[in-house]
């Protein structure tokens, strides 16, 4: 009986998965594209490093903290005008992706910054002693050495994005989380609620396992 119910819901579930994939995919890609450089910038402008710049560093730090202190649901609503400007609509997965991206960039940037801090200062000094340019040090020393941590950071961002995307229903973004809320919560449909939860658990476990695997491969210590 409940199996029939699940089969009935399969098309809905598939659509929801597609929407989640789209929202999370867009925002994760943009987070990687902008969050990693932002994390690097937060690190190299800090005290004692080669692009030390107190003003820039404080501004970046402040902005990152602001975005990170807003609950995602508030951010989602607050960014509606920006969303309208960027994607010319305020509903659908594309619209939700804007807020998700804005939340994900500083999130990942902090994690990247933290993994860069794990690189021994002596190694950075050694690279400077080789006569390398700052950009060369970033590309050939900092990023490769922090890679396992960055991979873990991307994994964590992805999982958080899946969590955040459950709220995307507010702006009609759809997705698996929204499906659980609409059917499971509003209609007391426990079968759908359980099904979506199981699906989400499986997805998150798979992502974490894959992330760990890649991080381990990258770790040569």
């Amino acid at each position, binding site marked *: 009986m409940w199996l029939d119910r699940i089969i009935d819901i399969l098309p809905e579930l598939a659509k929801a998965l597609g929407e989640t994939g789209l929202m999370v995919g867009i925002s994760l890609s943009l987070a990687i594209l902008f969050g990693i450089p932002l994390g690097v910038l937060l690190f190299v402008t800090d005290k004692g490093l080669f692009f030390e710049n107190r003003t820039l560093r404080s501004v970046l730090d402040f902005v990152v903290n602001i975005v990170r202190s807003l609950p995602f649901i508030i951010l989602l609503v607050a960014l509606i005008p920006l969303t309208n400007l960027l994607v010319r609509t305020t509903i659908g997965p594309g619209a939700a992706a804007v807020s998700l991206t804005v939340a994900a960039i500083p999130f990942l940037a902090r994690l990247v910054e933290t993994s860069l801090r794990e690189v*021994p200062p*002596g190694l950075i000094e050694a690279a400077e*002693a080789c*006569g*390398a340019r700052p950009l060369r040090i970033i590309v050939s*020393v900092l990023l490769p050495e922090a890679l396992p941590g960055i991979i873990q950071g991307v994994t964590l961002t992805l999982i958080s994005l899946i969590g955040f995307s459950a709220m995307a229903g507010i702006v009609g973004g759809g997705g698996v989380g929204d499906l659980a809320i609409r059917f499971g919560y509003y209609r007391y449909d426990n079968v759908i609620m359980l099904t979506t939860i199981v699906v989400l658990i499986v997805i998150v476990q798979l992502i974490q396992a894959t992330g760990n695997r890649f991080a381990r491969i990258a770790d*040569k*210590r």
Partner: protein
Amino acid sequence: MITFKNITKQYTKGTHSVDALKDIDLTIHQGEIFGIIGASGAGKSTLLRLINGLERPTAGSVAVGNLALDGLSKQELRHLRLDIGMIFQHFQLIQSRTVAENIAFALKAAGVKKTKFAARINELIDLVGLIGHADSYPSQLSGGQKQRVGIARALANDPRVLLCDEATSALDPVTTQQILSLLKDLNKRLGLTIVLITHEIEVVKQICDRVAVMDAGRIVETGPTFSLFSEPRHPVSRRYVDMALQIELPDEILKRVPGKVIRLQFTGDKTGESTLSSAIKQFDINVSILHGKVDYIQDQAFGVLIVSLTGTALKVDAAIEWLDQQLHALEVIDYVA
């Protein structure tokens, strides 16, 4: 080759300022192995880092060759660094990159063409004795092998100077020997000027031509290694030398020994024993050797003997006076009537 003029280095933290270096004047010659020895916190690490501009002096000037470091732009400083290799106590290799890639990093920094990498890397791996390890990761290597990678990276761009920051302090004695002889060999073969800092007098004794002793931010003594051992002038130097020679008699033994106990020091061609045997013949005294050691520093013999002289007091005193004239240094340690 490398000159320090009137160097002061202060670190300021809030209202508190600490003098890391004070009144440093020093010249290091081309082609020599120059050692800087001192306890941790003596300022030797800061002094070493002034040479490649990792640290800037608060006052005074540093020059490498004819180039003063004071007014260099970042670009010029990077260029100078290609000419000054550096190795570290904890090796500081890129863990996520292979041996070959670690060496390639230095080549990339210098803007060497990629097509020339393979040949140069092979050459360097051969030079430091790491054949077969090009594709190993640092974590797969022993400490000595890691330091060899460090040396290969430091030498990648044919520098004139090699800076060694406690390069053997994290290594076991056997590996230390191997790395020191590699450094000595590179110094001879490539005419490389080596500046090393260490807290181990053994390292100085084995490979340094000249040495500076540092204490609390100052250089308290500078000179050829042999002179440091044969006539240390500053108390800190003397402590290091005593540590290296490790010649001391337990008090218990000193009490039991009859006669006058003296410590003789001899250097170069005047060996202790022949002088002693002359003394025995001339003054009709008995000599028994309690302790002795001969060391070779920069291929010169340097020895210490602790002997007791017995005989009539008059003759013993005359013998001591004569020995004092003959030998470099003599010290009456204890007198037991």
